């Protein structure tokens, strides 16, 4: 990095990618992969999302691992971030639920209320 300007340019570019600015209907799937998430079974869940998204031939979807959000008791946690910033947090996600999230939330546009963190965390 040579200058602050260089960094700011890189930041703007990285921000566009992260905010999905150039994607139509972009969606970011964040799978919590701290030690707690991985121990609770996040790895196969991440793989399941990759497989499901490919199987349904969905585009403009970014699947990524993230660290721990702190809600360790509810892992594996998956957040669906839509382009407008709407964030839906699903907890205790297994392979079955991953499939359902792709089919219901991503394809049909229905959020699965029953599995949302805010619903479960009473």
């Amino acid at each position, binding site marked *: *990095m040579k200058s602050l300007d260089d960094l700011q340019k*890189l930041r703007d570019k*990285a921000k566009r990618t*992260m905010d999905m600015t150039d994607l139509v209907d972009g969606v970011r799937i*964040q799978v919590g992969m701290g030690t707690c998430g991985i121990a609770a079974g996040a790895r196969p869940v991440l793989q399941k999302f990759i497989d499901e998204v490919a199987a349904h031939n969905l585009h403009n979807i970014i699947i990524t*691992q993230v*660290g*721990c959000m702190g809600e360790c*008791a509810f892992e594996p946690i998956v957040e669906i971030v839509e382009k407008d910033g709407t964030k839906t947090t699903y907890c205790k996600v297994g392979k079955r639920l991953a499939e359902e999230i792709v089919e219901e939330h991503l394809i049909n546009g229905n959020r699965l209320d029953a599995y949302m963190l805010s619903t479960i*965390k009473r």
Partner: protein
Amino acid sequence: MLSRMHILICGGKDCLSSHSKELRDEFHLVLSELNLLDEVRLVMAGCFGLCSQGPIVVMTPGETFYSHVTVADIREICEEHVVKGNIVERLLIKEPIDKAKIKNYSQLKFYDRQRRIALRNCGQINPTDINEYIARDGYLALGKVLSTMSPAEVVAEMKKSGLRGRGGAGFSTGQKWEFAAKSVDDVKYVICNADEGDPGAFMDRSVLEGDPHSVLEAMAICGYGIGSHQGYIYVRAEYPIAVERLNNAIKQARELRLLGKNIFSSGFAFDIELRLGAGAFVCGEETALMASIEGNRGMPRLKPPFPAVKGLWGHPTNVNNVETFANVPAIFLKGADWFKAIGTEKSSGTKVFALGGKIANTGLVEIPMGTTLREVIFDIGGGIPNHRKFKAVQTGGPSGGCITEAALDTPIDFDSLVAMGSMMGSGGMIVMDEDNCMVDVARFYLDFTVDESCGKCTPCREGTRRMLDILNKICAGNGTLEDLDLLESIANMVKDSSLCALGQSAPNPVLSTLTHFRDEYIAHVVDKVCPAGVCSNLTNYTITDKCIGCTKCAKNCPVSAISGTVKQQHVIDLSKCIRCGACKKACPVNAISSKPLPKEENK
């Protein structure tokens, strides 16, 4: 993102039909016009159960409920409430709200109380991709520091922020940097202490796994401030994911020349290497840690000389904890005044706590200093499960003490915890309920310190061993009142004469339980009963008339010692009972207690 405010929009199914999505879009639009998107987070919340008043919008902190909000109201909310802090009276919910009736109230509390600085990126960015860190203003603080500030200004800013070390003692970070900066030497070191040995603490691991670059950036800033060109991260080998992500982060930072020579064309060079520890608790103590990095056995030495004067390989060294470092880039981005305004007068900023034990929501919470323990345990943590009563909370791990119900409303900061006979430590917070035996808890921590004592000094090596012997004797039912006096006097001796803080603080769990729960000790030695029903030699379970006859205890008893019919009070046959406690755990109404036997049965 360091949001100062959350706007929760009720996104329950019913409110969705009343246009909460449009509300969200409008908020997004107005906030971006006002350039506030970085400061305010919009959250689509679950249903609040106030549907007749919907759509509901809740502003936190402050828990302001706006009802019947329409798209046309949003500009006013943003301009008045968000910008000026004025409540929009006409939108306030009309009826007084009964908090108990609000659905998902906990989500509200959760957002209301938490404030994320150290954990700002954890769970939000991909930790293996430096670009995502940069997208969130990563390395901007370093760029700003190297391009516009002198090393002395960096140290001054740090002092002004009031940041205190998050690794244990809470020493002023700015002062520590100043000492190291003032030591004259061509070679100095920056060390990040990622040993995290407290049982029950895992915030450092979370930062390293979720946001490794924040630590690297902070270490480089520190290096510039004190005049060092080499950093080490001492991380335990038991954290393989953290190690892998740190190695990857260092590689990526080097590739972008954010580490290495001539960073930001400033002439400043800084590099970082990892050193793996074998997971000894004592190696978290800074002088033992440095001995371990040097390749020697990890044993502490007397201070002074302090590391800032004579540290790693005899050179001035600054040691800070992971969470301490994680705060640093935010401080330089937003300014010391911003940070100082958060928290209490003497403890600025936030603290991450690892909530564990008998609590509904185990996990990490980051709260401003000055939040009360009650808010942390009951509002954020969701309280004690299974209708049990709160007994105590242990903070500071094996070096800390227990805090009782009476102190739950004290605002937490470094000094108040010490005044309560405990300490901040690294931020482990273990909640205990009436099923925890406090003598057994003291024994648990002491067992840990006996194992982890390095053996260099006699008080710690022999004293803790003797204390453990006494505790074992008490738990086995053979203790006497004289043992309690002996225990207390050895504890004070170990505290006063040990070489390092491991030994000096090891008696704390014993002394604090002796102070706050002496009646439990006395029950063990005089009445020969463990009131919590944990110490098996001193436990005689009885089923009280609270019993609803659900049969769960009988079904869970491994030796069929419990009899009774459905909906009738059950009975335990103590001659068969093996005191395993399975019935007590299974009981939904807490009807099983441990009582002293009548004298003649007491062998």
